[in-house]
């Protein structure tokens, strides 16, 4: 009975043509990586530096693949069954929650196993080039990747058991992936070499990141080590953390798989206006803009589609945005104050770097969730047909939808402006840099928005649209950074600079002269890329919208 669920899940996954294309694409990519670096003149470096360089990139590539590709399947697994009603059927069988969970988990792990097995020929080629140890390098990297697959699959299943919609599950899962794998590196990066609770926290948190573990394994040094040597066993620490998370997450998810998962009453639609004055006052204090107040009619001067989009969102309604903006503003001002007060001696460039990284991370995380489902959500919910029967033109519909994304992004970008202003006040010479950074951020936001909307419009389902948009955007933001990590070896300065021109994060970091990026000149090439990319994406979005709207 256990194998029945696993078999069903796995065949459903593998039956998709996209999956086969993806797996074979990966194999080809890994193969090419080895072929490019394969010795062609009959001589082999005895130090094995060349194969280690390739293996380093190969490891990061595999890790990025697992982090970007894998979570979407467990994230949609339970919530999709819940929405379709098949979870109730499963719970009604003698299988029990443990077997249902294990069946699903095994199927996802089998998929991860397939990806890893497909990468074995390329790994063997690296090994054959010499310089790599079977146990010390290959085995440990694959062990790390298996742990990553286990941990993130369990977490995604847990998220899926709580999610009410498929796209929300995808959104939260990718947020978790980004948070656990990348954001956990932040505190260590800034506090390493210092003493105190913050440094301890940074040390503790980086144990959660698979990137830190992989860096220590492949000998790439610590993330932003700045010359500091660290001999911590990060793989061991990561293994303990990931196994702990996997066990807790599994028990938690299994405890969710019972009749209570459906035990949700329909919302009675409580309205604050009907409550007592004191409750109304408390809600206003708490929310600033109460989401449960009775909304006024849409003004004639406002695009109704934009208002509709705002009202339809759970995350994205005004009270959430105001909270987010407030956090951004406080954080940016706090960082700047810490520098001016002499609490931290990071320098203005580093503070600027943190703000840029945080803003871009926020934009990259939030934009696809707001923008990817603009068209697909309408199609999936059958709202598109209704919109077609109204006199609204396609251009007005698209503009209204894009406006509903532009406004939150503008608020987020504006929220950190006070931080930049203080920075310019401290260091007037940075005025031009700050101006360029702001342009970079604005262009990044526009690019992320239009690209996500365009990619999302190609899908009929919101979950696929959201996952697709996240995948493309994270690939554009993440893959060039992989090349950057291999700067000087195996990639030369020119290659890294050429690749980084496609990366909006790198461009902003190079402008603010963040350590590690200060030697690359990425402007205006990056602006051209973002501008042309945005234009092409907009055309794709318009064409796709026109295509699905015209009478058949």
């Amino acid at each position, binding site marked *: 009975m256990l194998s029945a669920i696993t078999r069903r899940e796995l065949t459903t996954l593998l039956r998709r043509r996209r999956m086969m294309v993806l797996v074979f694409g990966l194999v080809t990519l890994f193969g090419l990586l080895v072929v490019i670096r394969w010795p062609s003149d009959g001589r082999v470096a005895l130090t094995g530096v060349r194969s280690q360089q390739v293996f380093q990139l190969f490891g990061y590539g595999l890790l990025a693949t697992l982090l970007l590709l894998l979570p979407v399947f467990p994230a949609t697994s339970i919530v999709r069954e819940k929405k379709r009603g098949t979870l109730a059927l499963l719970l009604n069988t003698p299988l029990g929650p443990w077997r249902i969970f294990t069946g699903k988990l095994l199927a996802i792990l089998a998929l991860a196993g397939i990806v890893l097995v497909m990468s074995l020929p390329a790994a063997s080629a690296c090994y054959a080039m010499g310089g790599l140890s079977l146990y010390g390098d290959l085995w440990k990297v694959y062990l790390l990747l298996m742990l990553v697959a286990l941990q993130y699959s369990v977490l995604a299943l847990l998220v899926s058991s709580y999610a009410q*919609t498929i796209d929300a599950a995808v959104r939260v899962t990718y947020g978790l992936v980004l948070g656990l794998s990348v954001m956990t590196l932040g505190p260590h990066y800034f506090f390493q070499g210092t003493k105190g609770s913050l440094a301890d926290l940074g040390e503790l948190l980086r144990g959660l990141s698979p990137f830190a573990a992989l860096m220590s394994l492949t000998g790439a040094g610590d993330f932003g080590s700045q010359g500091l040597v660290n001999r911590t066993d990060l793989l061991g620490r990561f293994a303990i953390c990931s196994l702990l998370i996997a066990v807790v997450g599994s028990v938690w998810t299994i405890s969710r798989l019972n009749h209570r998962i459906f035990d949700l009453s*329909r*919302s*009675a*639609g*409580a*309205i604050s206006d*009907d409550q007592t004055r004191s409750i109304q006052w408390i809600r206003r204090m708490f929310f600033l803009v109460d989401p449960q107040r*009775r*909304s006024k*009619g*849409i*003004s*004639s001067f406002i695009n*109704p*589609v934009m*208002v*509709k989009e705002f*009202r*339809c*969102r*759970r995350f994205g*309604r005004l009270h959430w945005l105001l909270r987010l903006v407030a956090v951004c503003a406080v954080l940016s001002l706090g960082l700047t104050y810490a520098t001016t007060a002499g609490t931290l001696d990071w320098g203005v460039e580093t503070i600027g770097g943190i703000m840029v990284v945080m803003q871009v991370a926020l934009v990259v995380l939030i934009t696809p969730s707001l923008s990817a489902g603009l068209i697909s959500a309408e199609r999936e*919910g*059958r*709202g598109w*047909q*209704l*919109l*077609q*029967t*109204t*006199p*609204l033109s396609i251009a007005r519909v698209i503009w209204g939808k894009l406006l509903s994304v532009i406004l939150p992004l503008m608020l987020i970008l504006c929220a950190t402006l006070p931080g930049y202003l203080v920075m310019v006040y401290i260091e007037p010479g940075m005025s031009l840099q700050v101006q360029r950074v702001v342009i970079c951020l604005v262009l990044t936001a526009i690019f992320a928005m239009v690209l996500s909307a365009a990619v999302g419009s190609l899908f009929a389902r919101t979950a696929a649209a959201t996952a697709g948009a996240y995948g493309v955007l994270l690939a554009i933001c993440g893959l060039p950074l992989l090349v950057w990590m291999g700067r000087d070896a195996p990639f030369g300065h020119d290659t890294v600079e050429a690749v980084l021109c496609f990366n909006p994060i790198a461009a902003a970091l190079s402008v603010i002269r963040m350590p590690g990026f200060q030697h690359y000149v990425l402007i205006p090439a990056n602006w051209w890329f973002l501008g042309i990319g945005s234009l092409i994406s907009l055309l794709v979005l318009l064409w796709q919208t026109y295509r699905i709207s015209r*009478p*058949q």
Partner: protein
Amino acid sequence: MTADRPSGSVSDTPVLVLEHLTKQYGAFTALDDLTLTLNAGQILGLIGPNGAGKTTTIKILVGLIRPTSGTAMIAGVDCVRDSQKIKRMVGYMPDTFGSYDNMRVREYLDFFGAAFGIAPRLRAKRIDEVMQLTGTTYMRDRFVESLSHGMQQRVGLSRILLHDPKVLILDEPVNGLDPQARIEMRDLLIQLAAQGKTLLVTSHILPELTRICHRVAIMTHGKLRAFGTVEEIGRQVSQQRTIESHLVSADQVTAAANIIRQSIEPGADVVEVAAEATVRFRTARSESDLGDVLTRLIQGGIRITQFREVQTDLEEAFMSFARPKEGAGAKPAVVGGAAHA
């Protein structure tokens, strides 16, 4: 059976005119030379099995599909060329609700009112009016996705009434509704027709259509098979009429059946239902011949409480058109010679 149908507001002005409407998808013909007209204030019931071409017809009327040939006009406006004008003249309720997450009923109606360009003040007034008409006022603060199917259908109806269209096109409005919701929806449609709206309704629940429709069009395989009132269609389906005679006592059922057999065509169906003290028979005889049958029954000492013609059921009519068409050589013919209301 027909007492429910709205009367009084039906005019002779044709509102819906379809002429030789054809839609082809490659070699497949979804709609084949459909011609019919419908007058203002009438309710047209469009019935047919899945794939009959009902939804294709509807989508052409609301401008979502372009016909391969033929014309479709609503109140003199071409559905294909003037699709923008048509959007303001037609209220279309598809078979799926089209809900938006996190949106309250009033917000939902406000959005569609704004999409139709109704000014805010007028919109607020109009929303109150349609909510009152459809009985949805009490659910104005509820989230649309949390409503039951019946409630959603009524909200859907409110949505299409907002811009006060002349023609309402409803695809399966009673599908999936419980009996009470179905009755409420039926009453609502009758009320709307009484207000002068022209309605085109598709449904699989044929008794519902029998009760409310002035005209019924039966479609199979993209062709119009029958068009007319339910009575006209029933008469065309069967040249023979079903007559039912209720007796005072079940003891006389056999005797009555014998008299009837002697009075009508030899070999005709005569069914004795002793439990209901009824004799039912099918005949092609004229009214005066039936009068003679009644006289003979009375002269034979049979005590009769009722002697009446049983109307041919729409389901029966539908099946008689749908069944033969499954095979080849289907004969496309419009009952009554012309498909005009």
